[in-house]
């Protein structure tokens, strides 16, 4: 996360409402994209993210000031989102989609909103690349796929991923490395086939 944003959040920590409004501004779309990748249903994603933020508000009001100041809030929000998404998945597994089904499309549309100033052809190229990458990631085993997704698409640190998934950092590193190796192999295979 941007250090300036982190500092700014820390400065606002004594005013929960201001702090919270900044959180919503910063992370609403990110979290929605993240959850959308898991659920594939925009309405479900919206509901889950709303729940995430209401729970976050309740927790922030409960936390001591020092806790709010030192909170790694982005990873913390992802952790809550991950838990609620997992709960949702256990309640209605039939409604969960894989990374590639619909979720990525919705995410790209969301990302597109952030790129209004870029050239359309660049945007389309980026979208295609991302779609290709997501299609490849989709072929990975589930445990590699999730770590790779959090690392590259959500741009979370490995330690943050370890915290979110409650896995040892070493395990997350191994999963990420093996996932990348598998992606490279798949990519090389595709290139050879095309060539």
């Amino acid at each position, binding site marked *: 996360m941007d250090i300036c944003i982190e500092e700014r959040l820390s400065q606002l920590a004594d005013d929960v409402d201001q702090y919270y409004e900044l959180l919503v501004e910063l992370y609403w779309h990110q979290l929605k994209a993240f959850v959308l990748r898991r659920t594939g249903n925009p309405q479900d994603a919206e509901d889950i993210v709303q729940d995430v933020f209401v729970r976050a508000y*309740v927790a922030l009001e409960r936390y001591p000031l020092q806790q709010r100041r030192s909170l790694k809030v982005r990873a913390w929000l992802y952790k809550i989102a991950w838990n609620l998404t997992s709960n949702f998945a256990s309640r209605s597994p039939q409604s969960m989609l894989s990374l590639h089904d619909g979720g990525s499309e919705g995410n790209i549309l969301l990302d597109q909103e952030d790129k209004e100033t870029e050239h359309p052809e660049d945007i389309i190229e980026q979208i295609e690349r991302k779609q290709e990458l997501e299609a490849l990631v989709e072929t990975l085993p589930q445990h590699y796929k999730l770590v790779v997704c959090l690392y590259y698409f959500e741009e979370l640190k490995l330690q943050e991923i370890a915290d979110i998934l409650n896995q040892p950092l070493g395990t997350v590193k191994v999963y990420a490395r093996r996932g990348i190796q598998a992606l490279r192999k798949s990519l090389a295979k595709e290139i050879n086939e095309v060539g």
Partner: protein
Amino acid sequence: MEFDEHEHQQSKSQRPNIPQHSSSPSISPVLAYLGLSSPSTTHPEETMGQLLTELLHEKWSVRVAAVRKLEKFKERAPLAALLHMLEDEHQAVRAATVRALGKINQEIPLDPLLSMLHDSDWHVRATVLGTVSKYSDRVPIEPLVSALGDLDESVRAAAIAAIGSLGERAPIAPLVAALHDYTWTVREAAALALGNMADRAPIKPLLAAMEDVDRAVRQAAEQSLHQTHPEFFVKKQKQQENVDLPASQEIGSHAKDQPQERLPEDGTARVIDLAAFRDTRTVSTIKPQEQDNASSPGPAIPVELPEHQLLKSNPNKIIWSEQTDDFRSKQSATSMPKQQEQMPVSVLEKRAMAQPDRREHTTRKRSLATPARRIRLPERGLIAAVLIAICLPWLFLSLNQHIHTASTINQWAIATTFQHHDTTGSISTAIWTSAPSAPDTNCVAFADTSGHVEVWDPLTNRRVNTYGPFVKVLALTGTTNHLYIAALTQNGSIQILEDGLTKQVLPLKGSQHTTGSFSPDGTYFSVALNTSGDSTIHTWNIITGKEEPHTYTAQPGMVETIVWPAQGSIVASVSTDNQTNEIEIWNATTGQSILPAQPVPYINTNLAVVAMAWSPDGQRLAYMLADESVSIYNRQSGGGPFTTTPTDPGNGLQNQNALAWSPDGKYLATSQANGEIQIWDASLDANTGTPLGTYQTHNAQITTLAWSPDNSKRIVGGDNTGNIWVLTAM
């Protein structure tokens, strides 16, 4: 949660200091839900009268915003109007109102607030707990403790925080119990709350929490330990300084030449630390998923390790906790730099809960990672003497504490250690069983009204198996090796399944009114078909596949319940016939009643029997009537030891409830209409019939309870909304 996208349009210019997000033409609905989409200060022109008018507005978001503005009037805020808003139809308004009542600095009545702990919305309940915690001098403790049984994790965390705010009044046991909750938010809240307990905070649970699988919990525990027992870290640091050796020094010669340096200056602290650490080690281990750390490199020198060296940290911890995120630039770098191998660290090695079979492994790892020293015999004697001198008083104090805990049984601390929501129907039966793939694992099996059976491991929170759907699940029973299901199939036959595989199809045609019950060991299955007034109860031997020769036919009316004991073949059954309700007790092998024939051959009750269970020894039959009174019939004495009167009869007669005996036959858990669970002392030498404690608050009707057979004080329960949970008493 309802959000109206059109109700919270707001200009960003109204909110200074907030970065403008190019993709956010409107504010998130969550801000409207929380009443944050309005300016933080009330416009001067907005009088209280206007705000009071807005409280009646048809849009809930307007009402929420009005409540948020009214709270800023503080002492001048209209208390009566706010109290009235507690009954608003929208949960966002109720939650905002509850929050406002905690902000207005007025002497508010707590009863209306506490009654909202039964609100259907978790946000309202959590906010209530946050608000009443501001009145810590007069809030009663019992509702806060009861809220620890809430099914929502945010509510439980808020309850923990509220208890933590009570200061000297706060009971410690529930906070310690919550350190075992299955959600990290609750465990984190418990660790933080213990930080408010000053020197009352017990050091051992906090040390154990520093080994939690979740980093937030570990950090909270360490923070609380710093607050409550700073001397622990000072002594620990001294100890580290004393035990750390220069890397280049030859270990054996050090031990030989400078034996006095092997003990810290303050030997007391070291021994206490070691004892605490040992204690946590007995209940801790590493989850299988954490085994990857075992592959991390470390110095592989098998050595004999002095006991106090066990506190030296695992170098692996340093790598994982301090290494920065350099994976992007060096993806293959998973090995540990040499110079970091000997770095000390201020926290103990990470471990998860349960599974003591990993103890040897963790010890071995630690010993491999620590420099070797050998202690000569005289020195061992000295260390032993110090250990005994220090440990004995500590052990005595610990024992005293344990005895005190055991004697105050009504102070049982209950933690919700598992929870699952079944979306396909209400829970009809829940039992404890073992998974076929893991016979030593205590799993929870439950059936729902849609005919599904699921098996879950409550420790790992994972589904182990699913069976069905069946037309109707008649009965479940679990042995150490198998799960038996009796179910109606599509063609009306009654099927007995062992671990999901059909074992028998009974030569009977069932109906929707069919009632059945297994003997707990899975040997017998009794079934009453209840078709056209037939109340004949047939019993099959599942092992031989043959029907027992003696059916029971004496009971009139429709048989609604059949209950087998854990031992013996004396079965109880309940029937209803034209407003009469009868309990019959009979021998399944002879088909004969064992009740005296005079005056009537049944236990007659004026109300419907809504729950019934045999004590583990098969001697006492507990049954609950529709008014929630509980009676115990003793086969030997012919009467109870007691009949209770309901403590909270609710607002009517119930048609379903649950009760369960503890495996030692001392306690009886019963459910109430309001979703609470009461624990009764049902031991033969304490037959007072008074409840020992009341736990679990939610709104749904509990339909099943089962006490874990392993004496672990765990109770699985299910309700008619599909919730299933495990309560663990500490």
